[in-house]
C-alpha cells in the first residue's frame, strides 16, 4: 500500500520501480478522461432510466384504465339485457376493427354465451385470471403472451344478465398490447444507443480537454531540460504558467537558486582548499630542498624533520576537520544524544585551556548551568573551538566568559571575549570554511579558518543555531542556541552501545 502511495506521490521514481515489475500509475490524461466519462455516463443513465420508467408506466396505467372502464360499461349493458337475447354483445362483437376482445361465460356451466370475432382463436377462456368473487373490477390486468407471440392485457369480472331475472355470468376482456410492447422495446433501444453514443462522445471530449489542459506540463518539462550544471541561471519564471503549476515553477526556481549557490560554494571551496594546501606543501618542500643543498650536521637534519612533522600534523588535522564539516553538511555524522549537565563539560574545556590562558594572563570563567540533550562529544568540540578562538583574539589582561542561559524552550551558551572584535564586513562570513577576518594572523593562530565552520556544522546537526555579535575593539560574543528536544531513551542506549573507541 505504501509503495502504491509513494508511486502516486513520486512519479519520477515510479518509472524506475515500474521497470522492476511494479504497476505504473495511470497517466493524468487517462485519469481525467475516465473520471469525466464515468460521471457523464452515470448522469445519462440515470436520466434515461427515469424517462423510460415514466413512459412505460404511463402506457400501462392507460391500458389498465381502459380495460377497467370497458368492463364497467359492458357490465352495465348486460344488466339491462334479457338472458336469452341473441345479440348479447351486439356492439362489442360487431366491431371487427377493435383492438380488444370481450367474452361472456355462463358462471355455472362455463359455456361461452357470446364473444368477439376471432377471440376464440387467440384467447381461450382458461388463460384469463379468475374473477374476484365479490364482484370487484380489478385495477390491474394480467399480462399474457399468446403462442403466436402477441401480448395481451387480460381482465375478468363477475356480472349479471337481466336485473329482473338475474343470470350470473363471467365477463372476460383482453386488449392487444403488442404495439405498446413494440414501442417500449424501440424506446429502450433508442435510449441505449443514445447512452453508448453519449459515453463515447464524452470520452473523446474528455481526452481532448485533458490533453489540452496538460499541455503546459510538457512545456514545463521542455524548460526544465534546458537546465544544466553549467547553465544554472535558466529559470522557469512565474506568471507564465496556469495557477496550479505556478507554485511548482516557483519551487523549481528556488531549487535552482539553491543548487547554483551550492555549486558556487563548492567551486569557491575547491579554490580555497588548493590555496590552503599550497602553504604547508611549500614549507615542506622548501625545507627539504634547502637541507639537501649541502651536507649538514645530524642536528640540522633533525630540525628539518621535526619542522616537517609539525607541517604534517597541520595537514592531517586540516583533512580531519574538512571531512568533519563535509560529513556534517550531508548529515552523515550520527548524533549520540544524551541528557547531561553542560556546566561540568564547560569546566573540563576551561580546565584544558586554563594553563594557556594563565600564560596569556586571560581570565576564563563560566556562569550558569543547564540540562542539555545533545551529543556531548560534539558539544565539547564546539566549546573547545569557541574558547580557542576567543583566546587567540584576546590580548593579555583580557577575559573570556562563558555563560549558560535557559530561555523559553532553548538553552543558550554564550562565549564573550574582550578581544579585538570583528569588523561588521567580516561578521556574516566568519562561519564559512577557510574564512579569516585577518589573513595575516593565520600563521600565528595555527588554525586554517575551520574552527567556526565546525561550530556551525555541529549546531546545524543539532538543529540549533549560532550567531555572532561584535564591536571592534570591545570584543565578540558568539551564541550557541540549542532548541530543547525530548530525549528518546532507547535511541540513546543503542547509540551508546555502538559507540566505537575513539
Amino acid at each position, binding site marked *: 500500500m505504501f509503495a502504491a502511495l509513494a508511486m502516486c506521490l513520486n512519479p519520477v521514481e515510479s518509472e524506475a520501480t515500474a521497470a522492476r515489475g511494479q504497476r505504473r500509475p495511470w497517466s493524468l490524461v487517462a485519469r481525467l478522461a475516465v473520471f469525466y466519462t464515468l460521471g457523464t455516463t452515470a448522469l445519462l443513465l440515470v436520466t434515461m432510466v427515469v424517462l423510460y420508467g415514466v413512459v412505460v408506466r404511463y402506457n400501462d396505467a392507460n391500458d389498465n384504465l381502459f380495460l377497467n372502464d370497458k368492463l364497467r360499461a359492458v357490465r352495465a349493458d348486460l344488466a339491462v339485457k334479457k338472458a336469452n337475447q341473441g345479440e348479447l354483445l351486439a356492439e362489442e362483437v360487431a366491431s371487427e376493427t377493435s383492438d380488444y376482445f370481450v367474452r361472456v361465460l355462463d358462471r355455472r356451466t362455463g359455456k361461452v354465451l357470446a364473444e368477439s370475432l376471432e377471440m376464440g382463436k387467440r384467447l381461450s377462456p382458461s388463460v384469463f385470471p379468475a374473477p374476484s368473487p365479490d364482484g370487484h373490477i380489478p385495477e390491474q390486468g394480467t399480462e399474457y403472451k399468446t403462442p403466436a407471440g402477441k401480448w395481451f392485457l387480460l381482465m375478468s369480472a363477475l356480472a349479471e344478465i337481466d336485473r329482473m331475472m338475474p343470470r350470473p355470468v363471467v365477463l372476460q376482456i383482453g386488449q392487444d398490447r403488442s404495439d405498446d410492447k413494440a414501442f417500449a422495446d424501440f424506446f429502450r433501444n433508442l435510449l441505449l444507443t443514445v447512452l453508448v453514443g453519449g459515453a463515447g462522445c464524452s470520452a473523446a471530449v474528455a481526452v481532448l480537454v485533458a490533453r489540452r489542459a496538460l499541455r503546459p506540463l510538457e512545456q514545463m518539462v521542455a524548460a526544465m531540460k534546458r537546465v544544466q550544471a553549467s547553465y544554472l541561471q535558466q529559470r522557469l519564471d512565474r506568471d507564465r504558467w496556469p495557477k496550479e503549476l505556478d507554485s511548482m515553477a516557483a519551487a523549481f526556481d528556488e531549487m535552482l537558486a539553491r543548487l547554483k549557490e551550492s555549486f558556487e560554494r563548492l567551486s569557491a571551496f575547491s579554490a580555497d582548499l588548493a590555496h590552503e594546501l599550497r602553504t604547508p606543501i611549500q614549507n615542506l618542500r622548501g625545507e627539504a630542498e634547502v637541507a639537501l643543498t649541502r651536507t649538514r650536521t645530524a642536528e640540522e637534519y633533525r630540525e628539518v624533520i621535526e619542522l616537517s612533522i609539525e607541517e604534517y600534523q597541520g595537514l592531517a588535522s586540516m583533512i580531519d576537520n574538512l571531512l568533519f564539516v563535509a560529513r556534517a553538511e550531508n548529515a552523515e555524522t550520527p548524533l549520540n544524544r544524551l541528557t547531561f549537565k553542560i556546566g561540568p563539560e564547560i569546566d573540563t574545556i576551561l580546565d584544558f585551556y586554563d594553563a594557556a590562558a594563565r600564560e596569556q594572563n586571560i581570565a576564563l570563567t563560566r556562569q550558569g548551568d543547564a540540562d542539555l540533550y545533545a551529543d556531548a562529544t560534539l558539544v565539547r568540540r564546539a566549546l573547545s573551538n569557541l574558547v*580557542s578562538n576567543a583566546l*587567540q583574539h584576546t590580548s593579555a589582561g583580557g577575559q573570556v566568559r562563558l555563560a549558560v542561559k535557559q530561555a523559553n524552550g532553548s538553552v543558550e551558551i554564550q562565549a564573550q571575549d574582550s578581544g579585538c572584535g570583528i569588523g561588521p564586513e567580516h561578521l556574516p562570513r566568519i562561519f564559512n570554511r577557510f574564512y579569516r577576518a585577518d589573513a595575516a594572523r593565520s600563521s600565528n593562530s595555527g588554525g586554517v579558518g575551520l574552527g567556526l565552520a565546525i561550530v556551525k556544522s555541529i549546531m546545524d546537526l543539532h538543529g540549533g543555531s549560532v550567531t555572532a555579535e561584535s564591536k571592534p575593539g570591545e570584543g565578540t560574543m558568539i551564541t550557541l542556541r540549542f532548541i530543547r528536544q525530548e530525549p528518546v531513551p532507547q535511541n540513546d542506549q543503542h547509540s551508546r552501545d555502538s559507540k566505537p573507541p575513539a
Partner: protein
Amino acid sequence: MRLLIIEDEKKTAAHLKKGLSENGFTVDVAYDGSEGSQLACAGAYALIVLDVMLPRQDGWAILGELRRAGVMTPVLFLTARDRVEDRVKGLEMGADDYLVKPYAFSEFLARVRTILRRGSTAQQEVLRIADLEIDTRRHKATRAGCNLHLTRREFVLLSCLARSAGEVVSRTRIVEEVWDINFDTGTNIVEATMRRLRAKVDDPFEKPLIHNVRGIGYVLESR
C-alpha cells in the same frame, strides 16, 4: 617479539617495518592478502598489522578467514576510512584496535604495545622513575623525598607519562587520557600545561625527567 605487517603500499610497509624493528620487534611483511593469510596461519606472530584496502582480498575478508581458521592472533587495523560504521565493523569482526591514516608513528607504536601488553600487567599502584615516585592510589607524587604539590589534572598528566615511561606519548594521547577530549584541538594547548608541570617536577631538581620530543609529544625518562 614477532609481528606481521600486511600492507600493499610499499612505502608504508617499509617505514612501519623500520620503525618497529628499531623498537625491538622482529617484523615480516606481506604485500597482498593471500601471502598475508598464508604467513599468518603458518607463523606464530604476536600481532598482525592489517591494512583494510588490499588488492583482491580486503582486510576484513582476511580477518574473517584467519578467525575461521582458528588463528586468534591480535589484529591492528590500519585504514584511510574513518566512518563510524567502518570502525564498528572492524571492531565487531574481532579486530583489537583500529587506526586511521594519517596517524603518528608514536601513536601506532603505543597502540601496538598496548595490545601486546593487554591483560598481562595489572595497574601498578606505585610508579617509580629515577627519584620520582607516584602513588596512584593516594594521589601523591614525590621527587627525591620532596612532596610535589600538583593539581589534580597535573597529577593525572604525570601518571599518564609515567605509565608509559621511556616511550614517547603523543599530544593527542595526552589530551585524550587527561581531559577525555578525543577530537583535534588544533593548537598546542598541552604545552602550557606541560610547562606548569615541569616547573614543579623538573625545575627544582638537577636532572630533568620530562623531555619534549618535538613535533610528536613528550617522554618521561631518566637520561
